[in-house]
């Protein structure tokens, strides 16, 4: 019998097959990077009946209203969107060192002595009534502030008024594009301030902070106390 040789399979077309696959992946894939502005909405809580009404001062609230024609009313004044950034920046920084503008939120100096006094005060309140969730919350926040003070080179910082709140109000026809523009400006000003503190105090790049890293987590927490971001959104009227 003649010895039959098994013919070798030609691998010459392998490159073509691989090319086809390559082209398929090149065409089907989108290099779309998903980006966005992160926000945490306020939790839905039933207002406790016995809570005393909070004293809200006009100067602490920055009111931004956007109507269906995409016009802005900032603090009751018709304002072009280009001017909003400066107003928001002023809102955060006008009184940070010294009181310069009595229409903008006040700042108070927080130092370890102040923190300890407040901690003692709320400790007694919690000891009296363990169910007092509000006091417990205050206690925790003052403890965090004390820790912050101790980690600062100056041992103290200026804290924006607790009631400083940015209030957004939209109408049903306000465009989402305008809303994002407003959100972007608010984020920009807050980021600016946080970047500044982050370099001054910790000599780190704010945007390079790693959320998985424990040390960086602490810094993020402290930056949130230094530059709080308090936004409430009014319900759209029916």
């Amino acid at each position, binding site marked *: 019998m003649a010895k039959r040789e098994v013919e070798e399979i030609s*691998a010459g077309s*392998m*490159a073509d097959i*691989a*090319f086809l*696959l*390559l082209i398929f*992946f*090149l065409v*089907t*894939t*989108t*290099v*779309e*990077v*998903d*980006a*966005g*502005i*992160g*926000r*945490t*909405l*306020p*939790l*839905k809580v039933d207002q406790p009946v016995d809570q005393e009404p909070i004293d809200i001062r006009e100067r602490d609230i920055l009111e931004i209203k*956007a109507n*269906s024609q995409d016009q802005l009313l900032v603090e009751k004044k018709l304002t072009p969107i280009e001017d909003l950034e400066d107003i928001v920046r002023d809102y955060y920084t006008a009184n940070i060192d010294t009181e310069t503008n009595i229409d903008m939120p006040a700042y108070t100096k927080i130092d370890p002595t102040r923190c300890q006094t407040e901690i003692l005060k709320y400790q007694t309140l919690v000891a009296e009534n363990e169910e007092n969730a509000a006091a417990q919350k205050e206690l925790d926040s003052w403890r965090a502030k004390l820790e912050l003070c101790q980690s600062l080179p100056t041992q103290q910082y200026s804290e924006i008024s607790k009631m400083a709140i940015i209030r957004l109000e*939209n*109408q*049903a*026809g*306000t*465009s*989402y*594009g305008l*809303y*994002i*523009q407003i*959100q*972007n400006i608010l*984020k*920009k000003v807050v*980021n600016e301030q946080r970047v500044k503190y982050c370099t001054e105090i910790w000599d780190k790049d704010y*945007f390079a902070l790693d*959320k998985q890293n424990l040390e960086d987590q602490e810094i993020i927490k402290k930056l949130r106390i230094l530059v709080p971001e308090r936004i409430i*959104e009014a*319900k*759209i009227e029916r």
Partner: protein
Amino acid sequence: MGRFNKGKKRGVPGVNTSALPDIIFMLLFFFMVATTMKEQDYLVEIDKPTANQALPIEDKDKIDFVYIGFPIDANQGTEPRIQLNDQLAPGPASVIPWKLGAVRPGMRAFDIPTSLKVHKDVGMRVVSDVKENLREIDAIKINYSADARD
């Protein structure tokens, strides 16, 4: 002297192409690993707003997407509609069962952020309604999707 080989045998030798498939395969694997497939077919048209403060979403697998835009199918009207998974939702209240349905045991709706991909010309009414419904179930982590370029 002068004995240069001028014979006809000279000529550029053919390039050995046997390593070509390997190179192509390497490219192929690179693209397969580095790229992401489009996660959903859009039933609504979405022209995202731009925001230069937008940051890339880190964990795309651990986030739910709500699409709000104008329906591509003309039979669906011209009013903005909400797309959940691959269907148009009847109304903003549909996000509650949709969001709760995606919650795996041991997790809460609170743990999974929701990305809102909304056309920039959509009115705030529907966006606000969606957000109110998400708040009802404590799904309060929101990401407003936007193009990061200036």
